[in-house]
């Protein structure tokens, strides 16, 4: 087995015979190892953020100013850069779009051109592990710079990959093997140990940020449920899969408020994730959400669940302000 494949191969379980005598096709073992490496390098490199602004919802005319700021996870300690894609329109070429990360300090400048809408990719923004706050900054003195969409995706690693570079587990070895070698117990052990690590590459279920106050501070509308649909992983882990939920909140009132994460099928959300926000508190609040098998969303062929923030509907009134939120997990 040589670690030379840069494509995704899938092992074939049906070629393995059950029993005490091991009978397998070497191609399947090779495919499994390739699959491991591909998943380590590219698995989970799916959008972390996708947000749009219609009309003049985000227009900037002035000195450098941050608009939204999203909290995003990093897939592994080795996936340390993201690409930021921005769609914009401007009348005069005076604008600049930059992507910034809070903890890794990286910044990427993007020169913009006249007209639009254009798509600008700010590649290679450094981010810290296990998560970072990524923001977009606009400069446009004298003319309007209109942002339509922003999209953030992790940059993939090189492939073929020495898998140990990502998770410390290397069924194909740290370096490429030039020739076929016997299957070792160590390789099987590395596969076994590596599988749960690959499983836990975070996926983002929902991620939103309001604009900075200088642009026009947005908070989640109260008296309303902000929710999305997502897929659950049926049967793979008992009692569901746990996700992390983060919300940047502000309680300007003189009394404690509640923030309610709801998980369940549409129409009967369970209010089982209640966070207390003290009077005068401003900052991040975090909790965990367990996505169990629901399979109750009509029209979905797979198990799906509704996740969202209840901003004071019915019996749970609130005046707590939510400026940003995100939910991610395996």
């Amino acid at each position, binding site marked *: 087995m040589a670690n030379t494949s840069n494509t995704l191969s899938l092992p074939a379980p049906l070629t393995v015979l059950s029993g005490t005598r*091991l009978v397998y096709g070497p191609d399947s073992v090779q495919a499994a190892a390739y*699959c491991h490496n591909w*998943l380590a390098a590219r698995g*989970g490199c799916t959008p972390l953020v996708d947000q749009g*602004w219609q009309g003049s919802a985000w227009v900037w005319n002035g000195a450098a100013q941050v608009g939204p700021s999203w909290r995003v996870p990093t897939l592994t300690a080795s996936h340390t850069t993201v690409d930021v894609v921005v769609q914009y329109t401007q009348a005069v070429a005076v604008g600049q779009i930059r992507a910034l990360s809070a903890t890794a300090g990286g910044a990427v400048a993007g020169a913009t051109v006249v007209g639009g809408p254009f798509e600008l990719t700010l590649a290679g923004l450094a981010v810290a592990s296990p998560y970072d706050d990524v923001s977009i900054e606009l400069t446009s003195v004298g003319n309007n710079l209109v942002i339509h969409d922003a999209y953030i995706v992790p940059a993939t690693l090189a492939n073929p990959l020495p898998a140990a570079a990502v998770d410390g587990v290397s069924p194909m070895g740290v370096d490429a093997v030039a020739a076929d070698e016997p299957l070792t*117990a160590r390789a099987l052990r590395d596969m*076994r140990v590596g599988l749960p690590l690959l499983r836990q590459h975070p996926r983002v279920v929902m991620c939103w940020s309001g604009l900075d106050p200088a642009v026009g501070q947005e908070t989640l509308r109260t008296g309303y449920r902000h929710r999305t649909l997502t897929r659950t992983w049926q049967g793979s882990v008992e009692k569901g899969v746990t996700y992390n939920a983060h919300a940047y909140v502000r309680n300007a009132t003189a009394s404690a408020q509640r923030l309610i994460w709801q998980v369940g099928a549409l129409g009967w959300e369970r209010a089982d994730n209640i966070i207390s926000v003290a009077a005068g508190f401003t900052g991040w609040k975090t909790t965990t959400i367990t996505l169990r098998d629901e399979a109750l969303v009509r029209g979905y062929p797979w198990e799906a669940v509704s996740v969202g923030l209840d901003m004071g509907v019915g019996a749970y009134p609130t005046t707590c302000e939510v400026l940003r939120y995100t939910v991610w997990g395996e």
Partner: protein
Amino acid sequence: MADIYPRRTWPTLVEEEATQYLAPMSGAMLASIFDYYNHLALIRHLGRPQIDKVWEYDYDPITTSPVNSTQDLQVRLQAPPYAAHVFVAVQYQASPYAISAPDLAALGAPPVCRIVNTLLKHAGAVLVDSPGMRWDYGDGTLPPTVRVNGIDWQEGVVNPAVGGDVYPPRWAVSGMEINDAPPATVSRPRPLNVGTAAPTLLRWRLVATNARVLRAVAWILPEQVVTP
């Protein structure tokens, strides 16, 4: 949807200790490892390029009528290896009822609320699948239940007669409601076929008439593949 993605036994994971001492190894153990790789690759990783896209407006959409609202939106989609189908859902507002009696009188007959979906290659307006995506109500028309005269607030029905001055959104999901052929000729609902030579980046276009899209969810799914 068993005809699209036949469900296999869900994977089990071998005990790590079973690989750490000298003992005959069974084929079942290796098969379980392979099963798990397939599960991670086909379901958890390839099946999860999920878009959760939120649009914001320079007005409060909850208190503004979607009647006479038109939109032309596009969403980026990544097509991974083995991509075969795309499932989509939108959270939308649509109501044939005007926000006031004079508006209702001026509008006359209830307007048709429509969201037309098409899937494009990223670089240009080349349709991957020429008939485009359709909700299962024909030509993108949204479910007629939005015209029901009622007070079902959670379903997005807004009726001035019951004090409806807000427009709560409703979800339309694609799994059982999307077709790539006119409904009259469809024998079973099925998702859109991306095609075997799927490009790595696609665009999902939504053109909404008398409707407003607040959120879009999408993911591309592979065929079940058990052989390399």
